[in-house]
């Protein structure tokens, strides 16, 4: 079975075909930026994009995404090492504390900004409430999304 992750075709070993997408990403492909936290789709730490749709990879059977394009946090950095504008803003605003949820936060924020280039506070609250942060970095995430929105709208 093959998998398209971050634009690269990857092979999945036979005995791993019954696993979740998250498990295969982490344990087979060495892409450990998506993280396990709740296992029931309540926290978003494992959030990736499948054909552009934000998806909790802990609940997604890997077999179900074989013919789809998977984007993970590792796929956001450009080939020359340049960070994605969202990642750069996350650094500028000094968002992470423990950091465990931040891949999911950034992937969810990316999905939001793709749909809505100028999100209001309410838009952000609604969209981002599916990704939990126990350290409570929400205020900085909110600020970062607004800053990134400005930045990214200029780029597009």
């Amino acid at each position, binding site marked *: 079975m093959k998998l398209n992750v971050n634009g690269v075709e990857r092979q999945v070993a036979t005995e791993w075909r019954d696993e979740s997408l998250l498990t295969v990403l982490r344990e087979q492909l060495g892409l450990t930026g998506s993280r396990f936290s709740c*296992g029931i789709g309540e926290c978003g730490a494992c959030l990736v994009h499948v054909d552009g749709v934000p998806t909790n990879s802990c609940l997604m059977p890997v077999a179900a995404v074989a013919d789809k394009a998977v984007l993970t946090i590792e796929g956001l950095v450009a080939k020359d090492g340049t960070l994605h504008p969202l990642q750069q803003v996350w650094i500028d605003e000094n968002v992470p504390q423990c950091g465990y949820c931040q891949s999911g936060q950034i992937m969810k924020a990316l999905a939001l900004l793709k749909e809505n280039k100028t999100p209001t506070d309410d838009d952000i609250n609604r969209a981002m*409430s599916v990704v939990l942060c126990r350290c409570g970095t929400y*205020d900085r995430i909110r600020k970062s999304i607004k800053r990134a929105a400005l930045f990214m709208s200029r780029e597009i």
Partner: protein
Amino acid sequence: MVQMTRRKFLVASGCVAGGLTVLYNLGIRAAASAPTIIFPDERSGAAWIQIRPSGACHMYLPRQDMGQNANTGLAQIVAEELNILVADIIGERPTTSDVPPLAVTAASMSLTAFSRPVALAAATLRESLRARAAAMLGDSLANILDDLGGFRTANGRKVGYCELVSGTGVVIEFDDTKSPPPLYTFDPSRQKKQIGHSVRPLDIQALVTGAPVYAADVQVEGVLYGRVVQPPVRNAHIRSLDTQGVMQTRGLVKLVHEGDFVGVVCKTPSAVDAAIAQIKVTWNLDQPISQLAIDSLIDVDAEMMDGDLEHVLQDEAHRDTVDWDIDLRFEVQVQTHAQQEARAAIARFNESTTAHGLEIWTGTQDPWAIKRAAAVDTGLSQDDVVVYPQRLGGGFGGREYYEVERDAVRLARAVKRPVKVQWTRQDEFTASRCRPASTHRLRIAVDDEGNLSDWWYGYVSGHVALARERMAGWLLPMMRLGTDMGVVKGAIAPYAAPHQRVECTDVDLPIDLGVWRSLNGAPAVFAIESAMDELAIQRGEDSLQYRLAQMKGAHPRLQACFERVSEMSTKSLLPKGDNYGRGFAGGIFDGRCYVAVSADVHIDAETQKIRVLHMCCAQDVGLAVNPGQLRAQIESNLVWSIGMALLERFEVADNAIQSSNFNDYQIPRMMDMPSLDIEIIDQPAIPPAGAGEVALIAGPPAIANAIRNACDFRAVKLPIAFDDITANSRA
């Protein structure tokens, strides 16, 4: 002898040859803060800062990273003392074989306990380099002036550190008999270049790019996957066990059953889930696990009726028969850590004599305790066990013990292959050691002028530091003769009354208990600040002014926080209407950290929710080494305050922990997040104290007082539900 011990480590880690190295002692203050944890011998506890021939500064990061970012603050101190930039410091995380034991990362002690030794070490290194510069330039010491990355003379000659370190491995030891070098860090007159500025975590880029930094991210060749059935409480024993279905699980490598330890090792993670689901266990419990059992054990009124409580913390001319103006009972329920990382560990045994017999990768607050425990558990010598500490995805007091590591070690030993164990979220809820439930009786009487005359505060809490299963059973009865540092935290109010008594009793609860952010600080200050607010309201006085007056000038730093937050709160307009309210609360944590918080709330009949709209916080923890980081910790504490006051409800019933995941235990989400206004009161002349759990003492009572202000409902139980308010208004 002591020097030899240190040198052994330095030689082993290959660093002596590297350049000019300075060691520092950890000091005894760390040891005094948490008696339950085996601390390093103060004399042998050493770490190092080193200038290499390239001029690069290497520093062993002495703290476990879990979001508190204390190492960055310590690096700022080194940079300040050495006149270099923080960004130029190369931080290295030592394994348990690189240095003698470093104290557990807990109790917000990192800057308190480490800032001075680190400053002293870096300053000693600087002065040693200055002496070398003087010799090289043939000038007197007094003429060698500080310069960026080196020194300069009055006539403009410059010399960099790299020119002063020739690669001859020199270790500088402290000479206690000499007066210490000047410490720039604690010089209030100095215009600081590194300290007092916001510095990002040294490794922030790794955190936004998904780089492997947590234990479960570590890739070990040939690794298998395992997990263990977690008992509902650690003193439970297996009554019945049915593993019939397990053997048919596809991908099963081994079922491991030793006493009360039952686990599986499989080829893939999903096989582990399937195998564990086939294990049916029932447990024998010492105490039934139910809310009723907890409530009856912590009933402060029943305890106080029986006479004095177990520990009297304050007793000044106490009178028990006066007319009380306030007589309130408060209740705070169990809470859990719920850090985002589901904890993980990897264990690998090695036959080779060149490697350690056992290697453990884990994120823990106390790597050296894990090493000792693993040695005892396996019969290996301590020297034969190495722990590679990884970043923690949140700690909050819940990750000090040999637990997920034990699971990995025993399973790896059983299959003679490396094994990775990651707890499920349900394991986290079941086996994290909770903040105990407690009830509090607070009685206050005032004299004819309205000043406090009598203060009688009694409370009963589950154990914290001296909780069962947190230390050897034989040690407990003896330790419990003294007070539990976690249980007594926050109990002494900042208000003056000529007649005062504060007493408490701590008890075993039927669930596992332990350290949780702020310990008893948040529960106690919730009771104290709610009661004072209620007293002021009943007397028709301004609540904030009344509290300031009742401190009688004894706590100017707390008073300054209150005054500051009062002013800050006026910047934001509270919407008009019956269901909007503003409340204040403040307190002193650990005798050294001062904080005041205001909260604006809306009790929304339409959504049936209590929403915090805005919070202000003023905090003074002494010298603000890294103001940006202090701010981040305050934000975190304010979010936790919302969780504690309004959301987090830990359920137990039917002899089990019922809360199992984020769908049935609500922690704050983005939609719960208010706007924030935060100010840090800097005290350049006062050494820094920890900020990791300070604002959490004031946030919950500020929210409770805001609700009182909005709708006359006095919350006496946390968490507060919307239904509590409507039930009260119906009554």
